[in-house]
């Protein structure tokens, strides 16, 4: 087992909130010994070991210390207690284009920004065309950056950041900025990094993304690690924490003895590799785990695809399933070829009672795939299969 890429031990970060603090030498002389401050621990006893190639989702309510943790790990802030050790080059997508100078051209800024992020001039020269192509800024690369639109600015910043060939990528809510196609590009790039074996630490409020992208989820609350492990459970735990859990209406007690959707995985059926987004014409597989309390009646699983404006496009139902003795079953839907109709599609999965059609539990994934076909309408021809996946019994 290789040494972890990121290892934080007992990390705490204290901020002092100064009520009255000298900010100049003059005040310092007049005010001395009158300073009062309040302590605020943004992080407390955080132990985190992240191995090479892991993708970890870092989630938590606002103010829980996520961004502070990223800054401490990336060496921007020094921890008050504990130690942080990082191996490899870090690229953080915290602030895209930080350090751009409006007076300089895009080309000059690429060199400057790459140098700040740790690239040598020769490396930058090697990646230059690729960076510009990725940012889709070929015609504008010799214009001053101050004339760029905010989208162009962010694209260029992102292009540089992802081309520094990082060992570790820190992503903080970049998906909140930029338009749809940019967000998709971000996700595609993240997928590419995963395949390359890059370690990714991913902060997001889009909980749907966590099970799709991450192999591990860490929940922070008030600066402490509340959960570290299964990403689905992490998302679930945060939903409970935020009071937006799926079990809101029925209450936790009722929910627990009903069948549930435990985990959902989207992947490419050919390679088996996890994939967040699909395009028209591609094959898609959705596999998900269902847990049911022992002795439950058979359940059915439904997958529904909705198009723009939440219009249902097609629905697939599985045959009734008989969960194993441990109450778990895994179902796989495979779509041979996604339709080529223009749009962004969401999908939802649900566990239902096949006899009464009561939905026990459902989960919705927005923007699961994008079709780039040129037709707005067309005949939908979807070939799909469902199968209950034989589970290898562990232990």
């Amino acid at each position: 087992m290789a040494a972890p890429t990121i290892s934080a031990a007992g990390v705490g970060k204290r901020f002092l909130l100064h009520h009255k603090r000298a900010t100049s030498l003059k005040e310092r002389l007049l005010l001395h010994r009158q300073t009062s401050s309040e302590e605020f621990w943004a992080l407390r006893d955080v132990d985190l070991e992240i191995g090479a190639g892991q993708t970890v989702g870092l989630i938590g309510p606002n103010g829980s210390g996520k961004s502070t943790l990223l800054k401490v790990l990336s060496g921007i802030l020094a921890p008050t207690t504990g130690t942080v050790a990082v191996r490899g080059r870090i690229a953080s997508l915290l602030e895209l284009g930080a350090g751009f100078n409006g007076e300089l051209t895009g080309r000059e800024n690429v060199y400057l920004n790459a140098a700040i992020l740790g690239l040598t001039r020769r490396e930058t020269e090697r990646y230059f065309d690729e960076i510009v192509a990725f940012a889709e800024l070929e015609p504008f690369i010799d214009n001053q950056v101050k004339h760029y639109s905010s989208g162009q600015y962010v694209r260029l910043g992102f292009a540089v950041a992802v081309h520094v060939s990082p060992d570790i990528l820190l992503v903080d809510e970049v998906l909140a900025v930029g338009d749809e196609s940019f967000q998709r590009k971000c996700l595609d790039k993240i997928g590419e990094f995963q395949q390359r074996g890059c370690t990714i630490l991913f902060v997001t409020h889009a909980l749907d993304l966590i099970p799709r992208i991450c192999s591990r989820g860490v929940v922070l609350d008030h600066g402490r690690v509340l959960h570290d492990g299964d990403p689905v459970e992490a998302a679930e735990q945060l939903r409970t924490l935020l009071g937006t859990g799926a079990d809101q209406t029925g209450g936790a007690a009722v929910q627990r003895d009903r069948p549930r959707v435990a985990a959902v995985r989207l992947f490419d059926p050919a390679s088996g590799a996890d994939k967040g987004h699909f395009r028209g014409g591609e094959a898609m597989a959705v596999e998900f785990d269902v847990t049911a309390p022992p002795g439950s009646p058979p359940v059915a699983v439904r997958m529904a695809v909705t198009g723009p404006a939440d219009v249902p496009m097609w629905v697939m139902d599985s045959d009734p399933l008989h969960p194993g003795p441990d109450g778990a079953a895994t179902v796989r839907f495979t779509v041979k070829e996604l339709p080529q109709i223009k749009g962004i599609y969401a999908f939802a999965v649900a566990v239902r009672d096949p006899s009464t059609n009561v939905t026990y539990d459902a989960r919705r994934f927005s923007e699961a795939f994008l079709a780039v076909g040129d037709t707005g309408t067309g005949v939908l021809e979807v070939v799909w299969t469902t199968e209950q996946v034989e589970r290898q019994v562990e232990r």
Partner: protein
Amino acid sequence: MVQLGSAADARAAAQSRVRWELLAELVRKDLKVKYKNSALGFVWSLANPLLYLAVFSLVFGFFLKNNVPWFAVMFMSGYLLWSFFNSATLDATGTVVGNANLVRKVRFPRVVLPLASVGFAGVHLLLQLLVFFLFLVLAYPDAFGAQLWLLVPALAVVVTFTMAMSLLASSLNVRYRDVQHLLEIALLAWFWLTPIVYPVTFVRDQLAGAGLLWMFKFYMANPLTAVVVAAQRAIYVHPVVTASNGEVVQVLPAGGYGFYLQWLGVAAAVSAVLLVVGLWTFRRLQADFAEEL
């Protein structure tokens, strides 16, 4: 697969170590930004020394006649080095605060920010010296002798001292924002306490006349004085000259180079100690930069 191990460790280290390439890139940026929209470009960097030369020539060659022949050469020899120190330090002071956006968000060696100001001023110094030497070739060939080598240690000392002051000022300015203003005032007083527009021997003679010659040591302990005087000896060359009215004027301490080397040595020691203090202070304070900004 990303290979881990020593290569990764090296890349991690490279993100916090001073990298010359980054420093060069920042200096290049400053130069580009400064001269982007000006037709005269670099010629502007000569305007400031020439303006000072004109004003001081008028004041000291006419109003307060000091009788120093070739006053322009004596003044420029010291002023160019002073101006390097002055503009680099003032410029560096605001760099950490001025790049708050970068400091708060990106991991990179912060030391390069003030050092880039030193580099920027250094490029100007080189160009100004080049033009100055072209002038000397035509008008003052005396400058080209063995004594010119004194300029090398003088430059080394002034660069070290400037780096030290830049590191100190830029890091302290994050915590105490009035450092910048205090420094501006201090530099003005400093300029007049350094023998740039008047010969150092005038100070020595005045102190001796008042029976305070022992104080001359303290006057010379200012590293900039040692640097400026050495540069004057290197370029102006002649300690004793005859003015146009036949008066014999002593501009620089006579004798060999002992006086100059001795004070340059003191200045070098002071600068080296200050550089260590500056680096230590900067490294100590930089942990809090992201919070203070």
